């Protein structure tokens, strides 16, 4: 399955076009592959969620010259799309009426961060665009770090919403706990990683600030594969052991 899916990214109708122009190869993240929220557990595959970043993980300055941190995840789909270049996998040949091609991969490049998200597995380009956009949100959450001043820090509501109910700083108004399959998980995940980044990867420090036990924060991080991988990369950069 994984191998078949790996080919999807380079898939073209083998019918009449001998040498399609393939997209430039994407950097694949080192194994284990990132799993994204919109991908079901049964089919984690790097091809389904291939992603890369041209830029460093804590992007401060976009190509458009704007400095400072933009809250990309707070943007509407249209606004976020406006910051993206959309590419599709170009087929060779004349296209249009000449061709019957059901595959409609979409590749989004987010200009301010250089993050690329793509989707290939849906039946229409329209849906692939929506999947790619939702993946882009996840990737932004995982890769773009907002600097935090710990002195004045209070966890944002997006973060409170993904915390388990036993957190002592979590008010009743935060509502039920939001899990990884909810689209609102991404902003919470971003805020959690921001905090973890600010405390240099220390789960126990983060746990104190979040009013939870170290074990509870670990479990939260481990509840989502992409969050776990991002947290462990962050910890590895600080010389800490990975959470398992």
């Amino acid at each position, binding site marked *: *399955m994984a191998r078949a899916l790996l080919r999807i990214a380079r898939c073209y109708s083998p*019918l*009449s076009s001998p040498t399609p122009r393939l997209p430039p190869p994407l950097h694949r993240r080192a194994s284990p592959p990132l799993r994204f929220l919109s991908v079901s557990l049964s089919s984690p595959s790097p091809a389904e969620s291939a992603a890369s970043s041209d830029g460093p993980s804590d992007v401060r300055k976009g190509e458009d010259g704007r400095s400072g941190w933009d809250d990309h995840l707070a943007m509407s789909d249209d606004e976020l799309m406006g910051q993206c270049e959309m590419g599709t996998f170009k087929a060779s040949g004349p296209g*249009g*009426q*000449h061709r019957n091609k059901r595959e409609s991969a979409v590749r989004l490049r987010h200009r301010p961060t250089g993050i690329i998200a793509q989707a290939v597995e849906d039946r*229409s380009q329209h849906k692939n665009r929506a999947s790619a956009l939702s993946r882009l949100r996840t990737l932004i959450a995982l890769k773009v770090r907002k600097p935090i001043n710990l002195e004045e820090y209070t966890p944002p509501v997006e973060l409170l919403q993904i915390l388990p109910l036993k957190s002592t700083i979590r008010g009743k108004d935060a509502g039920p706990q939001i899990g990884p399959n909810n689209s609102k998980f991404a902003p919470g995940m971003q805020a959690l990683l921001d905090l973890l980044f600010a405390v240099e990867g220390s789960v126990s420090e983060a746990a104190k600030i979040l009013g939870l036990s170290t074990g509870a924060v670990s479990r939260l991080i481990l509840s989502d594969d992409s969050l776990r991988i991002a947290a462990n990369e962050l910890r590895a950069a600080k010389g800490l052991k990975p959470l398992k």
Partner: protein
Amino acid sequence: MLASASASASFLPRPKPKPHLLKRLASALTPPSPLSPSTGADPDPDQDPTPLFLRPPAHPVPAPSLAAFRRRAAALVPPSAPHLHRHLRWLLADAAHDPDADPALLRAPLGDLEALWLRHVRDRRPFQYVVGNEHWRDLVVAVREGVLIPRPETEAVVEMVGRVEGFEAGWWTDLGTGSGAIAVAVARMLGPEGKVFATDVSEVAIEVARLNVQRYGMQDKVQIRHGSWFEPLEDLKGKFMGVISNPPYIPTDDLPGLQPEVGWHEPKLALDGGKDGLDHLLHLCEGLSSVLKPGGFFVFETNGNKQSEFLVDFLSTKWDSSFHDVEAVLDFADIKRFVTGYRR
């Protein structure tokens, strides 16, 4: 499931198709029956003009039988063709109310499904004709033999209409509407005063377009008229805010070289643009001034770069007094796919 089937296909000698598959295959090699001139299989598993995905799920099939079908069907395509394995998944998604139920309720007898799959993988019948739809923009457009399958490039036409100032309230015409995909998509964006008049010379297209208009509840917004290009619009001259068309534009000499799914199965009527591919496009350009309001917009899809450049040059030099802002617009593959402009 698919992976195991395709893996076994790569390790084992070619699996023996079941006898009834062989029979279907043999029948595919016999001369076409008069009933199904375009496909050459007999008996025709889809005499019913209702697209597969819209038929009632009235054929219970035990899960093991459906699983066996999946294996047989997957074994017919090489692992090196992942798009065909994906098509099999989509075929089952369209054919079964819930493919994982036991029994699964299919929209066609299992034998018909086998025949349909063979039509696709052996006869190169377009997958869209097999399942009777194409997912286009956010629509599921019903299609069948005799109408052009809407192409992903054409999706951009709807976006261009949406960028015309005041488009919501205008009257639009989609000439040669085919499945009606453009007409329905545009109609869904319009306000209460907006209307689309969709014309087509093909009776099959008229039927299919009518079905799609109904499926999306656009009967009040889309009026379908039977006839060639502008002919059915005599009473609406000068009334249109916009003219949209994806006419046949492939040069006749290029038709034999088309991919079999297109050349063998899609209607020549919707593909053949005459010697240079420009016959219909030029006819459409000539009619623009009489149907468009002053300031009205037009967008045509073309064969690509050369045709678009020619038309832009033609409209902005010869007919400079009639049009302005005529330009070629790129598709997602950076081909100059569309020509757009405004009437003065």
